C-alpha cells in the first residue's frame, strides 16, 4: 500500500484527488492546510505528496523545503499543484526541490499517471 498525501484548502479538490487515486494500491491522506499537512507527512511518511502552492499555514513551497531538509523524508516525491501557470512560481517550486508540478485544472488521469511514475521503481 502506497500512501499519497494531498494538501489543499479546497475540499472539492481533495475529494477529486482522493477519488482519482484511492484504490487497492493507494491510500490517500487529506490535509486542509500546510500545517496539518506537515503533521501528517511526519506521521505517515507518504511516498508521494501533492501540495497546493497557495494554501493557508505553510505554503507548498515551504513544505517542499521542509521535506527536502528532513533526512527521514528523503525518498518522498513532491508534486506541486499550482493554479498559477506562472513560470516564476513553477521555477521556485522546482528550485525548492519539487519533482514535478501540475497546473490546475489538471486531468485526473494525468495525475494518476504522474503518481504511478513517481512510485515506479527506477
Amino acid at each position, binding site marked *: 500500500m502506497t500512501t499519497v498525501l494531498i494538501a489543499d*484548502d*479546497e*475540499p*472539492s*479538490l481533495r*475529494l*477529486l484527488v482522493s*477519488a*482519482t487515486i484511492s484504490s487497492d494500491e493507494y491510500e490517500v491522506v487529506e490535509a*486542509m*492546510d500546510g500545517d496539518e499537512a506537515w503533521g501528517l507527512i511526519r506521521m505517515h511518511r507518504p511516498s508521494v505528496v501533492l501540495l497546493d502552492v*497557495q494554501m*493557508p*499555514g505553510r505554503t507548498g513551497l515551504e513544505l517542499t523545503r521542509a521535506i527536502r531538509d528532513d533526512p527521514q523524508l528523503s525518498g518522498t516525491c513532491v508534486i506541486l499543484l499550482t*493554479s*498559477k*501557470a*506562472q513560470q516564476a512560481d513553477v521555477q521556485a517550486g522546482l528550485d525548492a526541490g519539487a519533482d514535478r508540478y501540475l497546473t*490546475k*485544472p*489538471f*486531468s*485526473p*488521469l494525468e495525475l494518476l499517471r504522474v503518481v504511478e511514475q513517481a512510485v515506479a521503481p527506477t
Partner: protein
Amino acid sequence: MDDPLLQFLTRGVYVLVFCLTLFDFLRWRDIPRLEVAALFASLALIIALQTVADTLAMTLPDWASTVAVLALLAQPYLLVRVLGQFRTVPVRQQAAALVGLGVSGGLFLVFGSTPPIWATVSIVIAFTYVEGYATVAFIRSAFSHRGLTQRRLIAVALGSGCLAGVIVASGLATTLPAARQVLTPLMDVLALASAVAYYVGIAPPGWLRRIWQGAEVRRFLLGLSGLSGSQRVASTLDYLGPAAARATGGRAALVALARDDASGVLDVHADLTARSALEVSHVSTLALDRSPSLHSAWQQRRCVALGTSDDWGWELRDLGLALDARGALIAPLVAGDRTYGVFIVFVNRASLFVDDDLAVLAVLADQAALAIEGSTRLEESIRERSTLTAVMSSMHEGLLVMDTDGVVRYCNDRTAELLGVERSSLIETPAKAVFEQVGSRLPAAASVMSQWKRALRTPEKRPLIEIELTGPSRSLLTEVFAVLDPAGAQRGVGVVIHDVTAERDLVRTKDELVSVVSHELRTPLASVVGFAELLRTRELSEPQRQQFLTVILEEGRRLTALINDFLDLQRMESGRQEIAPRPIALPMLLTQCAEAAGEDAARPIELQLPADMPEVRADSDRVRQVMANLLSNARKYSPAGGTVRVSADEADGQVIVRVEDEGLGLPPDAVSHLFEKFFRVDNSDRRSITGTGLGLAISRKIIEAHGGRIWAESEGLGRGSRFSFSLPVADIRNTSGDVLIVEDDAGFARLLEAELANRDITAVCVGSAEEALEQLQHETPKALVLDLLLPGIQGEAFLHSLCQTHAWTQPVIVVTVKDLSQTERAALKQLNVAAILRKEPTVGAAAADLVESIVRKRGNSRFGQGVAA
C-alpha cells in the same frame, strides 16, 4: 576809436567773421548764408576801407566813404533779415528797418559827412531802434530755443546789443564833444565785445562747439544713466524724447520704433509733452515709404534736417503742424547692425545753426539706440524668463538643471514636490547633496548617478532611468539630457522627472487582480473538469456518481457567482453601474431582506427597528444586495449557530444599519482588509466556508456610491462580528416653496433652508437636477439655488436645458466648490445666474441674504437683471 590794439583786434575779428561767413556761403550757396555774409560784409567793408586809409595815412575818396557809410547804415536792416531766419519778423518791423535804412541813407546822401545835428540824431535813432529791436528779438528767440542754438542766439543778441551801444556812443560823441573822453574807450570795448560775440554766435570755433555739444550730451547721458537697468522700453523712451528736445533746441521730440515684422512701419512713441500733437494729428505710425526724407535717413543711416522746402511726407508734416514746427531733425537709432527706429526732433525752423544741433542729435541717437537696445533686450529676456518660469512651474514633470560641476542651477516646484524636499534647498546645491537630502528614501542613489552618467554618453538612446523612492513609495522615471549652448558646447545637464507612481500602482493592481482572478477561477474549474473526466472514464457506483455530479454543479455555480460578482464589482469601480437613489422606508426594506434570507432555525434573524425612522435616500435594489451579502455572511460565519440581529438608528443626518452575529468573529488585523477584493480571513475555523471573496468589496462600493460608509467590528475571535453601514437621510421636503434648492449635499441644503426659514422664506430642496426638473413641473419658484456638481445631470447642463427648453427667466444663484474660470462665469451669467458663491461652511447666511434680496424684489416689482454679483 583811439586804442590801436583794441581797434586792431576789433577789426580783425569782424573781418574774420566776414571771411568765415563768406566761406560758409560759398560752400552752401543758399540765401540764409548769403544774408549772413552780407551782414558782415557791410561791417567788413567800412573796416577794410578805414584800415586802408589809416595804413596809407590818406583820406578816403568821397565815393568810398559814401559806400562804406551806406553799407554800415544797411547793417541793421541786414540784421533784421538774418533775424527772420530764426523767428518771424512782423511786417511792421521789416518796414521800419527799411524806412530807417532809407531815411538814414537819404540824410547821409543829402548832408554828406558833416550832417546837421538833427540829422545825425535821426540817423542814430533809426540805427539804434532797429538794432535794438533785433537785439531784443534775438534774445526772445534765444529763449524759445534750447541747446546750442540758444547759446548762439544769445551771442548774436549780445553782438547786436553791443553794436547798437557803439552807435549810440558814437552818436553821443558827435553831439557832445565834451563826453568824448569817456565815450571813446567805452566804444572801443563795446566794439570788440560785439565783434567777439558775433564771432561766437555766427561762426563759433570748433572747440567751442565741442564744449557746448559736450555739455548737452553729458546732461543727456547723465539722465540716461539714471535709467540704466530700466526694465521697460517705454520708460526709456519717455526719457529720450524730452531730453533730446532739450539738448537740440527742439519743440518736442518723438521716438518712432520699427516693428519687428520689417514692414517699414514705425510706431510713434510720444512722451507727455508731445502726446497731444499725436492726438491732434491722428498720427500714430510712420510709414517709411511715405516720407522720402525719413526713408533716406533710415536707409542711409544718417541724420537729416528738414526745412520748409523739403518733402516730409504727410504724416510728419501733420505732426509738424500740430507742434507748430517748421523744421525737423531726424536721426536713425542704430545699435550694432540693427536700426531700432528714428529720433525726430521738431524745431521752430531748420535755422542756420541746425548743423550743430544735428551733430548733437547724432550723438544722442547713438546713445539712445544703445539704451533702447538694452531696455528691449532686458524686457525681452524678462518676458521670456517669466514665460519660461510659468511654463516650468505649470509642468507636470519635474525639471532639474545642473551645471557642468553638478551643481543644481534650476529646478521647478514640481521637482521639489516629487523629491519631497524644499525647492530652495535644491538650488545651488551639488547633485550629491541633493541625493543626500532625499537620503534614506532613495537607497540606490549611487546607481542612479552612474546610470545618468552612462545615459549622457549615449544621448541618442535617451534611456529612461527609474528611481524608486521609498516611504512614501514613489516611482519616478528620469530622462537626462545634455544642455548645449548654440555653439554645441555642453553647459550643463538637465533631468526631466516623470512621476509614474499612479501608472505603476495601476499596473501592479492589475497584475495582482489578474493573478488572483485566475487563481479563483481555476480552483473551481479544476473540480469541474476533474470530476467530469472521472465520470466519463471510470466505472462508478451510483452514490459516487451523484456525489461527483453535485460537486460539479456546486463548483459550476460558484464559478457563475464569481463571474457575476466580479463583473458587478468592475461595473461599480468603473462607475458604469448607476444607482438611482429615492427616498425609501428602511424598516420595510430590512424586513423584506430578512424574509428573503430564508428560514434557518439555528441562525434566526432578529430585527430591532425603531418605529419613527426617517426615510433614507437609497437605491433599494442595491441596499437589498448589501443586506443579502451581510446576512449570508453572518450566517455562514456562525457555523455553530446563533442569532443574527439587524438594527438601525439615526444620527447626524444618517441612518446606520447594523448586522450582528454571534459567530466566529474577526481577528483584529483582518478588520481593515475585509472590504478588499478576494480577501478571506485565513483561519482554520472557516476553511470550509466558501465564497467569492468579492461580496464585501461590492457592498463597500455600493454604500460609498450612496455617500455612506461601511465598516466592521468584532470583539475578537469567537465573539461575533458586527457589520455596519450608513445611508443619508432623505430630506424632509417641502413640496412647495419660494425657492428651489438643487443641492446633493444634504447638510448644506438643510443649512440654507434653515437660514431662509429665519428670513420667512420657504424652500424646496432636491438632490439632483432630475428631481429639480420634476419639481419645476409643479411649481415655478421665485429663485433657484443651484450646486454645479450634482449626481447625474450636472448643474450647467441643467441650466442650459432650463433656459432653452423651459424658457426659464427666474434668477439663479450658483453655490459651488468649483473654481470657475472667467469664461465659465461669463457663460453662467448668460443663463440668468445672478450670483456665483463659493461653497464654504460660512456661505449659508450670505446666500440666504442674497436670496432674500432677490425674492423680496421679485415680490414687490417686476424683476430685472439688477442683482449684484
